[in-house]
């Protein structure tokens, strides 16, 4: 049995503390990733996340891993601790339910597969036929498919594709969870099962480009699924391209002051910072104000890493999403624009909990673009 140090290559750690110093949740939870690495280096370390429940507070934003000067990956250790708890079945009911739902229904939201295209009810959304070649595949994602707030992201995307005259297809109700959050939660077996099923589906079509609503889907397809034989982009990158190629133009305008929140999985994980900004600059009427904590320093909203299904462990202080919303309000903007369904949901919830109702609105970039068409 490899030790934690062996499994996660922890021995390079010099205990400099840059990881914990950059960890967004270290401010408000008991998560001390430097200490966990220390335990793994100096001894057998903790057995699983049940022993160290703060491991569930990690949002897998990867700041720790980016900042480590020695190439140690503390985030992988945390995911490993989660995985060990999962293998013993010792996880809270909300996590259990999300995982079981993904296995049964192909989405973590407890909804049946048959209703996965409900968001498209009033639209004419093409579904790829068996084996059909798909030049542009729109991978909707579980959250835009089922969550009422995020369904508008999917509808907006469809409207933009139509306006740009770009033919596209979806997989309809055959689409299943990409598994990004499943992997971050540590359920490696379920992740591999999803990859197997998704690859079979993807490989059975000749695909040109996969465009995703969510940076999470983009992240795993691009980096963890192996060679799919096609390009994988987030819609912000695709819109950027459409604008560049002159295929998208705006008929209206949005006379609003806006700021942009970099989703961790788009920015920190995949270095996509400029395309969303370029798209924003193209929307007529928009005045753009940058956050102080922007780009690589963007403040994680705490929606990723399985956090949507984690009941918070011993929190103290303000939720990061609340801070983010308050910071946006302080910037004097009307709209806080983001490009990720989880960011949208957590920031939108934070508008209420931070007492900012009426002062700011959260909107997805796709919705903003669709509005200005």
């Amino acid at each position: 049995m490899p030790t934690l140090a062996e499994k996660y290559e922890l021995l390079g750690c010099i205990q400099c503390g840059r990881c914990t110093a950059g960890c967004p949740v270290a401010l408000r939870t008991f998560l001390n990733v430097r200490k966990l690495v220390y335990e793994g280096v100096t001894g057998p370390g903790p057995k699983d996340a049940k022993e160290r429940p703060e491991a569930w507070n990690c949002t897998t934003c990867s700041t720790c891993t980016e900042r480590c000067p020695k190439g140690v990956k503390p985030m992988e250790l945390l995911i490993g601790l989660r995985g060990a708890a999962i293998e013993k079945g010792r996880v809270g009911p909300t996590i259990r339910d999300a995982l079981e739902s993904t296995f049964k229904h192909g989405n973590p939201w407890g909804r049946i597969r048959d209703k996965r295209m409900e968001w498209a009810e009033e639209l004419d959304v093409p579904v790829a036929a068996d084996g059909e070649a798909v030049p542009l595949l729109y991978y909707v994602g579980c959250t835009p498919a089922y969550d009422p707030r995020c369904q508008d992201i999917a509808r907006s995307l469809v409207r933009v594709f139509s306006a740009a005259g770009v033919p596209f297809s979806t997989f309809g109700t055959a689409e299943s969870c990409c598994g990004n959050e499943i992997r971050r939660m540590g359920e490696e077996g379920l992740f591999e099962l999803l990859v197997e099923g998704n690859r079979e589906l993807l490989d059975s079509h000749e695909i040109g480009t996969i465009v995703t609503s969510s940076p999470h889907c983009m992240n795993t397809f691009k980096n963890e699924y192996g060679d799919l034989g096609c390009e994988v982009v987030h819609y912000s990158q695709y819109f950027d391209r459409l604008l560049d190629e002159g295929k998208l133009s705006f008929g209206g305008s949005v006379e609003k002051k806006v700021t942009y929140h970099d989703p961790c999985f788009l920015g920190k994980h995949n270095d996509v910072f400029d395309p969303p900004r370029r798209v924003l600059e193209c929307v007529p009427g928009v005045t753009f104000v940058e956050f102080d904590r922007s780009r690589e320093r963007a403040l994680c909203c705490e929606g990723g890493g399985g956090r949507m299904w984690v009941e918070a462990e011993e929190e103290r202080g303000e939720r990061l999403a609340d801070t983010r919303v308050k910071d946006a309000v302080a910037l004097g903007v009307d709209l806080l624009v983001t490009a990720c369904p989880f960011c949208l949901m957590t920031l939108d919830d934070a508008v209420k909990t931070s007492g900012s109702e009426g002062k700011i609105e959260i909107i997805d970039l796709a919705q903003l673009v669709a509005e200005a068409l």
Partner: protein
Amino acid sequence: MNEILVLTEHLNGEFRDITFEMLTKARSLADAGGGKVAAVLFGSGVGDLAEKLTLLADEVLVSDHGSFANYNSAVYQPVLAEVVKSRGSSLVMIGHTAFGVDLAPSLAVALEVPLATDVIDVKHDGGAFTAMRQIYGGKINEEVGFGGAAQVMVTVRAAAFPPEEASREGSVVELGVDVPEEPALRRFVEYVEAAIGDVDITKSEVVIAVGRGIREEENMAMIEELAELLGGVVACSRPIVDAGWLPKDRQVGSSGKTVKPKLYVAVGVSGQFQHVSGMKSAETIVAINKDPKAPIFSAAHYGIVGDLFKVLPVLKEKIGELRA
């Protein structure tokens, strides 16, 4: 048919409603089929209860014995089995209650008679009984036959048959059957009342109930807001209590509380029978559910078929507008 035998159910000196409901149906079936109704009463010191039954049945069969002081199916079963066997009753009716469910299947095995449980209707046609019950949480009705058996047994769903008064002149018969001592194999220990929390939902005029449709604990806030807006309390169906989001004393239903408020709003509640039984007497019942076929719509007076996450925010707005 010769007779319909109804096992009456009582607790703390009072008959439970199921007793009157079953007897009403029994009378209706017996009258149409040329048979009689025999009510069975087991208990300890139940003389006055026996009297009440004489209006409702043709015969009241009583066994008054200390062993029946507290319900124990291990004591009821051998005695009832003997009664049913010796009388050859065509139909035996037992309530589909915690009490009845604990007894009927083992009794049916011992007597080797067919059993249909949780029935919502019983018919007698051409000399044979059939029963109607529900499956898949009330989404489908299932008609059950008994293969022409001479004796059949059913457990009856609460409130399936509206109770009616009657003025029979039933005779009370002391059953001379041997009643066993409570066996060591299975002994009653005590009843434990549910702890009473800070809110007594049975006392509120407005109850907003939430079910599985709410999906996550975080979303409960929406329900609380609606309750506050309408001046009511928050209640729930069983899954919410199982998940630990609300304490047991907020549960409405057969294993929870029965409420009779002026207004009952069921949000994301499917309306399975176990829940509906606890609120169907509310004056005005409103249901909000995505599924047009959800059983709750049969129990409600008004319904909105829609996504509660879309409806609730707008509803709150509209109520606010009307108030202004």
